[in-house]
């Protein structure tokens, strides 16, 4: 008789446990969905919903950059390319190139932590899909310009452009034909 009671117990257990599982799934029909319907049916653009520290595409405010290249040294995968030359006439150091290869960048934030003037920062921009990987090279320097002087101790830190404004402009430029003098495949 033992095995027969086992037989019945099996059936009973199945009905109870399966029934309770069904109750859970049915209860979800009567709850609100959890989905966020990216990209359009959201309260505001998803970029604006990201938390403060969110690490998106990198950008550099050239007007603050002192050309110290610490970020490039910190970068574990060498996705930052900086070229600083000394102008013979004015004896000034001139920033010729500041490129960030977003295709390589792994958004680790080590460069941002290292930047002494907080010119390099992560934006919240993340929508940067491209059909050509070479276009993912962001060039922040259009024409060579002298590097900024680091602020003295008692001076207030220089004004920086709002976070994201520079990179948004560059992302828009991605759709333009490639500029042979800056960025792009070499």
């Amino acid at each position, binding site marked *: 008789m033992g095995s027969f009671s086992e037989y019945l117990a099996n059936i009973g257990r199945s009905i109870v446990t399966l029934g309770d599982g069904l109750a859970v799934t049915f209860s979800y029909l009567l709850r609100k969905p959890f989905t966020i319907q990216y990209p359009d049916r959201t309260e505001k653009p998803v970029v604006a919903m990201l938390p403060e520290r969110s690490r998106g595409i990198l950008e550099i405010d050239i007007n603050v950059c002192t050309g110290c290249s610490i970020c490039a040294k910190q970068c574990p995968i*060498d996705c930052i390319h900086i070229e600083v030359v000394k102008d013979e006439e004015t004896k000034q150091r001139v920033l010729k190139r500041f490129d960030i290869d977003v295709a390589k960048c792994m958004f680790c934030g080590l460069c941002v932590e290292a930047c002494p003037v907080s010119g390099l920062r992560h934006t919240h921009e993340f929508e940067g899909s491209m059909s050509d*990987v*070479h276009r993912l090279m962001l060039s922040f320097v259009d024409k060579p310009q002298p590097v900024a002087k680091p602020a003295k101790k008692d001076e207030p830190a220089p004004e920086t452009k709002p976070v994201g404004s520079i990179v948004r402009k560059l992302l828009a430029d991605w759709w333009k034909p490639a500029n042979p003098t800056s960025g792009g*495949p*070499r």
Partner: protein
Amino acid sequence: MTTASKEICKKLADKLGVVLDFREEAGDPWALIPAERWKQACLTARDEPELSFNFLRSLCGVDRPDDGVIEVVAHLFSYQHRHALVIHTNTDRSASRLESVSSVWPAAIWHERETFDLFGVDFTGNPDLRRILLPEDWVGHPLLKDYEEPDSYRGIPTTRPGYEKKKFGPQLKKPAPKKPAPKVEKKPEGGEAPKGTAGSAEQK
């Protein structure tokens, strides 16, 4: 940690009847076992009730081109006594060969396969010594310090086209004694089919 390790090492040395080279640097201390006593030492470490190292944490290789050796390092641990031991052994870099400990701990089968794959250490007695992480037709053992990254594998370039080539070459301080050609080709069973084709399915 150090004193405990020293005592364990002493016990092991007593059982083996040899004097073990016990090294202490920063971090963990370790004992150097002569290559010919390697398997015996591992068996003793497992079976001796005072030691009973039943858990092989890891087994890996370390390339020392300056000394002309490839070290094989085993991290042992005992769940009973909650003590750990690190043992090293040296194999000749030009023809690295070591007795397999896969019969001591079955976990060693895969660890030895990995070490064979990345360092080319030939573990005699391992039942299944094949490449594990790299494709079976790969040439060379990449974790050796004089390994040079190939330009391409089966026609697939290893660098993104259009980008500056930044390969990693040998990381040697001084030129190392030349290691003979990789030993994959002279594996016992011939006719290894490349990974990813149906032919390799019945290999054993």
